[in-house]
């Protein structure tokens, strides 16, 4: 935005620090990043913090409303579902199922994506063009549809849904990393480094990776939101995680039967899921903006 700088001082802080400073300027993004960090914490600690087992049924405490309701109990702050299971415990474990697995799926897909994408970026000729075509086809298919196909082959279940989401995201990662690598390989500094006698591994490790890492982080953040959503959707339509597993989408589907009796059994997991995805999206957006601004500077 700022076109002329009368007093421009050279910025000597590291690029990451600059990025973080720019990112902090956006208050929304900052708050979102706290929520995001909190959710990650819950994804790790949730199962330990849960006051009850997410599977424990209490026959004498069916559909207890949340504690802020007149008839709620203090021992289950978010109330219980139709089988008397504590909703708070289920949500806490559910975060690690939906959100945790989503992040894990992105990490796995990223690892494979880096490997295949880099190899593809280095390769040329027929092999590259063949891969291009396959990738192009795979990229046209939305990830959720690919996930549905894979679940259809593997059969329902949380583990299968997880792998389906990983595989469905893989083409995007490969494509992204391959383009980055191919672009970068033509840059002068990489060519210079090569001429210095660096082998492919060194080129990748010391020239490419440091320059790609920011892009990768931003892309991965966006991928997390779609991975979480995909896992939840698969659970919701009943072809991913199966009840009684406390996956958020599955929980919502489970509680549909008592929808009008106890809306909170549907609303609370939904809000949690929404917060996970929203915070991820805002963080991703904020990072992208910050990066753009830093480059402008």
């Amino acid at each position, binding site marked *: 935005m700022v076109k002329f700088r009368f007093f421009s001082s050279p910025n000597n802080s590291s690029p990451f620090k600059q990025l973080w400073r720019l990112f902090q300027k956006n208050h929304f993004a900052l708050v979102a990043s706290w929520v995001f960090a909190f959710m990650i914490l819950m994804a790790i600690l949730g199962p330990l913090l849960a006051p009850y087992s997410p599977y424990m049924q209490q026959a004498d405490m069916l559909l207890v409303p949340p504690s802020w309701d007149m008839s709620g109990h203090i021992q289950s702050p978010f109330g219980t579902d139709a089988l008397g299971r504590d909703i708070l415990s289920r949500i806490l474990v559910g975060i690690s199922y939906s959100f945790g697995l989503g992040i894990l799926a992105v990490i796995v897909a990223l690892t494979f994506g880096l490997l295949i994408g880099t190899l593809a970026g280095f390769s040329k000729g027929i092999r590259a063009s063949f891969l291009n*075509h396959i990738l*192009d086809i795979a990229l046209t298919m939305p990830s959720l549809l690919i996930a549905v*196909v894979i679940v259809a*082959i593997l*059969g329902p279940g949380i583990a299968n849904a997880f792998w389906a989401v990983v595989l469905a995201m893989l083409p995007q990662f490969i494509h992204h990393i391959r383009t980055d690598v191919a672009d970068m390989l033509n840059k002068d500094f990489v060519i210079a480094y090569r001429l210095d006698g660096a082998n492919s591994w060194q080129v990748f490790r010391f020239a490419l990776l440091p320059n790609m890492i920011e892009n990768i982080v931003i892309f991965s953040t966006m991928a997390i939101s779609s991975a979480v959503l995909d896992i939840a959707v698969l659970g919701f*339509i009943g072809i991913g995680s199966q009840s009684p597993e406390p996956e958020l*989408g599955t929980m919502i589907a489970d509680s549909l039967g008592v929808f009008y009796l106890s809306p909170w059994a549907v609303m609370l997991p939904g809000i949690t899921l*929404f917060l996970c*995805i929203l915070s991820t*999206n805002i963080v991703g957006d904020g990072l992208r903006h910050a990066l753009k601004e830093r480059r402008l500077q």
Partner: protein
Amino acid sequence: MLNYFYRKLSLLFFITFGVTVFVFSLNYLFPTDVLSNMSGITNINEIDYDVIAQKYNLNDSVFTQYFGFVGRLLDGDWGVSFINGTSIFNQVFRVLPATIELAIYALLYSFIIAIPLGILASSDKHPWLDKSILALSIIGFSMPIFWLALLLILIFSIGLGWFPTSGRLSLIYNIPSSSGFLFLDILRSNIDYKSEALADAFKHLVLPTFVLAAYPTTVLIRTTRQSMKDVMNTSYVKAAKIKGLTSGQLLRRHGLRNGLLPVIQMLGIHFGTVITLAIVTEVIFAWPGIGSWLVDAIHQRDYPAIQGGLLVISGMVFVATILFDLLYMIFDPLARRHGHGKI
């Protein structure tokens, strides 16, 4: 131009090949017997097995099997369902129009809403408007679609009783299905409660369309906003401005045409996502389209039906993507230059 067209056509051919190979390989990937997957006949006894295996070239090489498979696809012999033994081909094309209808209305709706909003947001004059539209769009983008649907049902159907919760048309109206597109069918039928049926069909359409449109709308708002900003910052627009064109002329002559180009491209890219989201929407609203049909098939492990459904859905996505691409190319001559068989 022709060259470009030709390239796209050859790409289409390649994709068709890829998809059919994939669907054919599903016969082997699914856990049930290969012959059952192909024919849709469960529990084949030993005597029949040879006869049927002969028909499906099961004893020949995989290539012969594949070509036999493609031949049967072309003949409309897609096997029969494990569950009810009826032809998959007929089933698929009976439910497909409902999905297309829903997707088209949702896209239209998002077009109508998103483009004006996107242009509004792109203007520098109302920064608060820009902010709130953006905030709205990111919320819409993050809202799990099934949850949004449930909220809407809770508020508008059960709470206020404005809209029905499921289906395409009240069962009261007996509309003979000819084209499968409901509004067309109602208009073409000779029933004496046409307007009533139309109103009812519209009522059924409101919630699913809104839910399905949520995602493309948010994407379109952001795309439109960004590209309008870019276009308005280009030197040719600035030059035109200096020449004295009014803002209205500017918008009509340069802004819209160039600013909406990426929108067309966006539509192409996101059509597949819309179809996938349509699957979820259909499940929630019991919309009798191919999505809910496919999910049912997955639940019941009806493998021939899953194959048919996947074939049609992926085929539809690819064809639509290429069509949007062609459309984009017609509007944007620049795109023709670097179109090396990419979709």
